[in-house]
């Protein structure tokens, strides 16, 4: 934990815009550069900054390890599940055209869903990598 008041106050101010920017990148991936992968990394970076300044235990209180594993599994499930829904609607796996009445809307919806899945998985994995590596005490324990 860092006691420097400048770092603590700046972190409090800056973490939420970072996460907001991550969400912007997430949901505007089809209009501008970026997408699920980059958004996941940015959101994870926001949480990692919080953990760096306020300490790992505080970061763990925010996102516990079990929640972390659930988030990263949900991402893959959302991606794969979107594919299964299009199979259920009598089309090929991961063909999003059938998800809505208009095939363009279907594609748009499918891309949003799977990008969100990618974002969840990437954010979860990056966060768990940071938490586990920085709380690792070495082989001796």
């Amino acid at each position, binding site marked *: 934990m860092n006691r420097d008041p400048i770092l603590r106050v700046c972190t409090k101010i800056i973490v939420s815009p970072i996460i907001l920017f991550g969400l912007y990148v997430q949901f505007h991936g089809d209009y501008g550069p970026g997408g699920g992968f980059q958004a996941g990394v940015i959101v994870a970076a926001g949480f990692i900054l919080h953990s760096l300044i306020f300490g790992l235990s505080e970061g763990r209180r925010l996102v516990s*390890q079990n929640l972390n594993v659930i988030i990263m599994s949900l991402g893959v499930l959302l*991606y794969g599940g979107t594919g299964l829904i299009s199979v259920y609607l009598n089309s090929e796996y991961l063909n999003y055209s059938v998800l809505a009445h208009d095939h363009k809307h279907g594609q748009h919806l499918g891309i949003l869903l799977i990008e969100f899945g990618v974002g969840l998985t990437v954010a979860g994995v990056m966060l768990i990598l940071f938490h*586990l590596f920085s709380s690792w005490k070495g082989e001796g324990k």
Partner: protein
Amino acid sequence: MIEFFINGFLVFLLAIIAVIAIKSIKIFTTVMLAGAYSLISAIIFVSLDAVDVAFTEAAVGAGLSTVLYIAAMKHLPKRENIVNDNSIPALIVCIIVGCLLIWASFDLPTIGDVFSPIHQHVAPYYISNTKADMGIPNLVTSVLASYRGYDTLGETVVIFTAGLGVFLLLGDNSGQSNKDE
């Protein structure tokens, strides 16, 4: 002409950063220089019009991996052990491989060449059909998420597997498995 100077300057910066990073003894300096190296590479990607790649490079290379290195630094000594073996054979091998790579680069198509193989295969199809198929302006997203959806699913699973592996190796399983030991 101006593009040549900008790219030359960026590559020159990359070379300087690489040399300083190798020469520096403090690990913290090396980690910071690695981040700067990624940031300069990201600028080079922007100048090549690959904004998505640049975005990824800046977020992952300059941002997240630097943080992970800093977290790993806690387990390392502050300074590197100085090893003084000026290995001549290694230098010779490096120079030969470098010359071979430069020689091979003469066979690469020039940047933006319409007749290069990469622009003759599936790329024209994606460019002409994205608007009609998906109605979204970002080609990279349409290729990544829809035309090549399987590949991205595979990549997501790979990332997930990496995270799961680290979790199983280093995760907090103090409850049950310790009793078994």
